[in-house]
């Protein structure tokens, strides 16, 4: 299969950057999208050119590093799929494919397709955890959690922090990510002692990082590889209101 790639190349954070065309022959439909880029890079190295920089790690949809905007779709055309799990059979012979980095002020481009997403780490550091004393693991049955609650908290916890929600959102809002993290702990008894402090800290950090304001467009939910639901955003808003009455 032949493809026409149009890839964003940018030297560094402050260089202008531009699209460069690459023609790919012999793309196997069984390749993953990242393998296709590997093949491209091997070719570039052979020609003495600089390979295309892109983030990846686990290549099985669990780490959240792979982050590509493919033809305007965060993580490509498939729903509920990270870029690394996308296969070339989703494309047709002769297709042109535009590949860009996540575009958001809070995610500056490091090089080519790789972006700096440490803003998410700073949001997590502002409250996305529980403080417990270390020591022996407590007896599991001493805190009972209903099945539905556990499932729902687990669904929120499935967020891999990839940032596709920000990339897909016209406001570059990080609400889906933050709401998934807040929801995960707000639903479990272990998260309750720091509930108000957590949501306040994380939302304040989110705003300070320069992410936009959510306008409930739903683009994030549609792009999310882990199918994090908009209900989480509703819950985050509720948690913020609740925190007004708690100190």
């Amino acid at each position: 299969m032949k493809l026409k790639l149009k890839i964003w190349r940018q030297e560094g954070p402050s260089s202008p950057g531009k699209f460069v065309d690459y023609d790919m022959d012999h793309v196997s439909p069984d390749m993953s999208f990242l393998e296709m880029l590997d093949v491209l890079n091997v070719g570039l190295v052979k020609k003495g050119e600089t390979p295309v920089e892109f983030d990846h790690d686990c290549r099985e949809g669990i780490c959240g590093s792979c982050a590509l905007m493919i033809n305007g779709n965060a993580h490509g055309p498939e729903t509920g799929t990270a870029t690394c799990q996308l296969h070339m059979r989703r494309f047709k012979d002769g297709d042109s494919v535009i590949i860009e980095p996540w575009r958001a002020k809070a995610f500056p481009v490091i090089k080519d397709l790789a972006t700096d997403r440490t803003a998410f780490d700073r949001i997590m550091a502002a409250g996305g955890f529980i403080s417990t004393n270390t020591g022996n693991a407590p007896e599991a049955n001493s805190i009972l959690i209903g099945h539905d609650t556990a499932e729902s908290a687990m669904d929120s916890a499935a967020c891999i922090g990839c940032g596709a929600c920000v990339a897909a959102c016209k406001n570059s809002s990080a609400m889906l990510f933050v709401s998934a993290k807040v929801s995960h702990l707000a639903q479990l008894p272990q998260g309750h002692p720091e509930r108000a402090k957590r949501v306040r800290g994380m939302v304040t950090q989110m705003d300070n990082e320069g992410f936009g304001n959510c306008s409930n467009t739903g683009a994030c939910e549609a792009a999310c590889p882990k199918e994090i639901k908009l209900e989480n955003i509703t819950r985050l808003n509720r948690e913020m209101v609740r925190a007004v009455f708690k100190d």
Partner: protein
Amino acid sequence: MASLKLFLKSSVGRKFLVAVTGLGLSGFVLTHMAGNLLMFVRPEAYNTYGHKLTSTPLIYLAEAGLLAMFLIHMGLALKLALENRTARAMGPSQNPSTCEKSARFGSQYMALTGVLVLVFVILHLISFKYGTYYAVTYNGVEMRDLHRLVIEKFKLPLYTGWYLVSMLVLFVHLAHGFSASFQSLGLFSVRNCLIKKLGWAFAFLVAGGFFIQPIYGYFYGGN
């Protein structure tokens, strides 16, 4: 107090205020639309309703409240929208090529439709509230003959056309805005089945109701 201040300064708190005022304004457009329908009962009913509404001193309070809601809604929403543009810096070079990955109907154009509604509201106030005063007397009470002015205006094709286009714009704004408010308030997600249906129904009802009057005025006015 400190936590309230933090809330109102945060993105979530400001969106909360946009939602509260948005729902307040939704209530206003709904009653306005219902009031318009009185025209089809009798011109007298329509004019008397207008007269009663404007002759109670409470009207000043209501108008002040309405104006405050408008200003808060617009001011905050525009401020948020400008911040969002800064946060975006540069969008992807194209919109999602797959339909499943696109955003909710109307949600991408809230600032634009909102500004258009504002322009409409200003011109609308000039044409009607501050428009020509015709007097009519029912049972010895003199009041404004708004019915005559409405019919007169809607006989003009250009005016009717502009009015209908504006109502379509309002429809798009409400189609997203009404249901989205519930999410901003932390009550229901916009994906909630009931809220979704309610949102569409509300937008259809209001815009549809506002459609009847100009169409009637244009085709049957004066006969």
